[in-house]
Structure formats: C-alpha cells, structure tokens
C-alpha cells in the first residue's frame, strides 16, 4: 500500500500543486477542513459560458490531498460542471474498497490513487479537493441551474 502510495507519481503531482494560488475574483470560493487531521483546502472557481474558466487553490495538507488538488488543477479548466461532478463520482467509486476497477477517466492520473482504496483513513485526503470543487461549483453553478 504505502509502498505504492509514495511513488514518484503522487509525489510529483503533490510538488506541482504548490503555489497554484488564489483567484482574484472567483465566482465561488470554498474552504473545507478535514476534521480527521485538521488540514484545510481553499478552492476558487470562475465560470464562463457554462465551463470552468479559472481555478485556484490553496492546500495545507498531506501528499495525497495535494496530489489530488494538483490533478484537478491540471485538468479541470475548460470542463463543464457536469463533467467535473462526474469525475468526482469516479474518484469516490475508485476508493470504494470493493468498488471494482476504476471507471475509465479522461484524467489518467486518477489511477495513481487506486492504492489509497485499501487505506480507509486516507480516503478523505483524496476526496477533500474533489468535495471542495463540487461545493464551489454548487455555489457558482447550481446543478440544473444556468451558470
């Protein structure tokens, strides 16, 4: 498990999350605490023409959480809120202990989180940025509403 966990992939992803920084004028901004460790992520979104047009985040957390935030930072801009909610669902499914193989995703790095499935206490680390993303989208572009 953790042997796999702390491979270059995740560490590189985590390192690259650094300094993503905040947006100046976000449409929505969400801060989530991880009650289990006290870590915190703040995520800003901006939308234009029904798609995510800009993203910012500040992460004070572990490697897993930073790596997850980094994946979002890499791929989320340009996607529709619906697509992003679907990706968050894929991540949740991937972590289910008996969730079977991950749903194929257009975001290849998500597969790197597969080993976390076996470690329940760390699921929240990976999920936190996705939860923050969905919460920010909910605020900026309510499901079913027009953004």
């Amino acid at each position: 498990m953790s042997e796999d966990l702390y491979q270059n992939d995740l560490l590189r992803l985590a390192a690259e999350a650094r300094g993503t920084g905040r947006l100046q004028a976000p449409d929505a901004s969400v801060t989530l605490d991880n009650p289990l460790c006290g870590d915190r992520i703040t995520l800003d979104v901006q939308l234009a023409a029904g798609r995510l047009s800009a993203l910012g985040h500040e992460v004070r957390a572990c490697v897993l959480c930073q790596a997850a935030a980094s994946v979002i930072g890499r791929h989320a801009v340009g996607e529709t809120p619906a697509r992003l909610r679907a990706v968050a669902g894929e991540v949740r499914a991937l972590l289910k202990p008996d969730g079977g193989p991950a749903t194929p995703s257009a975001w290849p790095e998500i597969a790197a989180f597969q080993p976390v499935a076996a470690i329940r206490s760390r699921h929240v680390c990976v999920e936190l940025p996705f939860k923050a993303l969905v919460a920010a989208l909910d605020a900026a572009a309510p499901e079913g509403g027009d953004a």
Partner: protein
Amino acid sequence: MTFQPEALPAALRRQFPLLGRTVHGQPLHYLDNAATSQMPQSVLDAIANHETTARANVLRSVHFLAEAASAAYEESRAECARYLGAGVPEEVVFTSGCTGAINLVAHSFGDGRGPGDGRGPGDGLGPGDEVLISELEHHSNIVPWQMLRQRRGIVLKALPVTDDGRLDLTHLPRLVGDRCRLVALTHASNVTGAVTDVASVVAAARAVGAKVLLDGAQYAAHGPLDLPALGVDFYAFSGHKTFGPNGVGVLWARGEILADMPPFLGGGEMIRRVTIEATTYAEPPHRFEAGTPPIAQAVGLGAALRWIRGLDQAAVQAHLAALTRRLLDGLAALDRGRGLIRVIGPGDLAARLPVVSFTVTGAHPHDICQILDRHGVALRGGHHCAQPLMDRFGITGTTRASLACYNDAGDIDALLAGLEDAMARLRVGTGASGLSNP
C-alpha cells in the same frame, strides 16, 4: 526486586498477546500508547473469566451470579480507590471514559442545581464565573467547558503554553482571579508529554476558593497516585489508556463535593424513589451511574490497575526515561543539525512522560506515519485532539511516538530507521519535496 531496564520489556512483552503479531510482514513496533495501550493477558483473562462465570446485572438482583457480579464490580471500585490513594471507594464513579467523566463534571458541577448562594459545589456556575483551562488541553477538556459557557454564560480562560510545550504557570496570578470557580488542566499533555506542576496550580486555585480538576488520561497509566496529597478535587481517566478495556473510565472526586452534586444522566440505579411527579436520587457514587454500568469493563479496569501496581515503578520509569533519551538523541542525530526535525516538548526527562511529538519540515505527519506503518511502526500523526495547541505553534499536526513499559530499544531503532526512510521518500531537506506543509 529490581529489574534491569533491558530485561524489563522482554518479560513484560510476553504478557501482551497483541505485541507478538506482525504487520505488513514486519514485527509490530507499537508506539501509539497515548492513544490506546495494549492489554496484558491477566486483564484479558479477568474479563473473560467474569463473562463466563459471573455475568449478570448488578445492584438489584439477589441471585448468585448477580451477587458475584456486584461484588466484582464494587471490588474494582475499591481497587480504583486504592490506585488513586482515595479515602473511600464511594469517591470513585465509573463512567464511559475520561471524556464522559469530564462531561459529568461540566454538567453536575457546572450546571448544578440552580439558584444557590453561588459558591457551593452543587450550586452550579453562572454568568461571569470563570473556568480556567489551557492552550494545551485535549478537546475533551475544552469542548465540555465551551458547551457550559453556552449553557451558563461562564467565562472560559486559557493558560498559555511555553515554547517547549509546558503550561506557562507564570500567568496563574493573572488568570486565577476572584471569579475563578474551577481550574481544569491536564495532568500531562498528550502532545508534548509535559507534566503539570500540580502543587502550584492547587495553591493558586485554593487562594481564591476554586476547585481543581485534573485530566489524568495520560498520566494515570504511569503508576499509582495519591490524589488527596496532590490536593485536587476531581480526577478523570480512561480504562483503555491504562492497559484496561474500552468503554470505561473513572471520575474521582472528593466525597463532600460528590455529595453535594446533582446527578447528570437519569435512569436506573441512580434513584432513591421514582414517581411520575418527582424523583429522589441515590447517594454517590450510584447517583452518577445511571443505567447498567460497564460491568465487565470495570472488572477489567480493576485488573489493569492491579497489574500496574504489580510493576516495579522505579524500574519502569528508569526504563522509559532511557528509551525517551534514546529517541530524542536519535532524532537529533537524524537531523544532523539541519533544523528540519523539531521536537515540541520539554527537554528535561524528569518533567515529562515518554510522549514525544515532533515536526519534520516539508513532511506531513500522516505521510510520515503511513510510511512508518510499512516498517511495522505504529505512530500517530495529526492534531491529537489538541488543535488550540497546534495553533499556538502555527502547525496543523505533529508526529507522535508514545511509549509504554513494554517498548524496547528495538522499537525506538525501528522508528528511527523508518523515519530516515520516510524523509528520503518524501525528499525532506532536498529542497525538492515541494510540500507546502507544515
């Protein structure tokens, strides 16, 4: 009989079945004793024996098993009283744990009976009355008082913490004033290991007529106490951190205080007489033990305290001090003067428990712990339910090793080897780790 420090753990370890197991193919190095300590065979046996020969409800039935269960339960109360140096068993209240015990005080002492002269223990606290806690308390000794503040309008004050993780008692005169009714502090920190200078606290509290509660969750495992000599009024601890079972804890309080306190929870066993219109309550300790108590767990706790009393306390303490020294020296060696590893806690071994918290620049505690786990080393990372203390040091968490008498040099060495590996994997000190925390 005095054990050689090195011979001590081998003899002790054999008594703990769980310590023989492996994790991830490695021998287990259990260094999370401040969270929960393991149970010796004698305690496991005492519980199993109770459940298979004397299981029954207590206090109300007259049949053989009920007599046996009640006797075992009350004998455990007496054993707790002996361990605490308490005058009489009736000063020992069994609770669900240390958290349950502190909440009991917050309600029964804190809310009291309602209007009184405002100074009797059973009269409760009111607007403007002060409770003093500290910045290094466990959440279990913070949140109950915040809730009391919300219910009763008390003022909650907090003693600051020194840079080496001790209570800063120089602030006592400023913070313990005329309106202070209770000083509720930990006997030893579950993060920094610092042991509280109880005498100074008691003196300051006495001077203004305030009561003193000690949170003994961490300290109680380290040998029998003499609470009357300590001069405190309330003492709380948990079974599962004192080599006993989950689901049980103790509130000790001076008899005259208990006698004057109203009950907290309502239910069976705590009443004198019930009608729909009105109810009168039993004497302490039963007044505070509503419902069927944790019987087998209390029996197990009694066995655990008996087991601790059977240890050579001086030998255990010398052994744990030596291991703590080895750990602190090892961390310093690993750091090689780079200032990456920072221990948060007193350097003086006499004033601390074998609980060692540290941060590693650029490495998150949970990542460290996860890698150490592959080495068979069980540590705890995070805020340790002491977020105000984390805020005090500007961090979100530490990595913590906490030792018990059965730990040995091999455990410490495994920790140090594992930490070296973790620092390498997480590229600590290479400037390339890129981790924003802590």
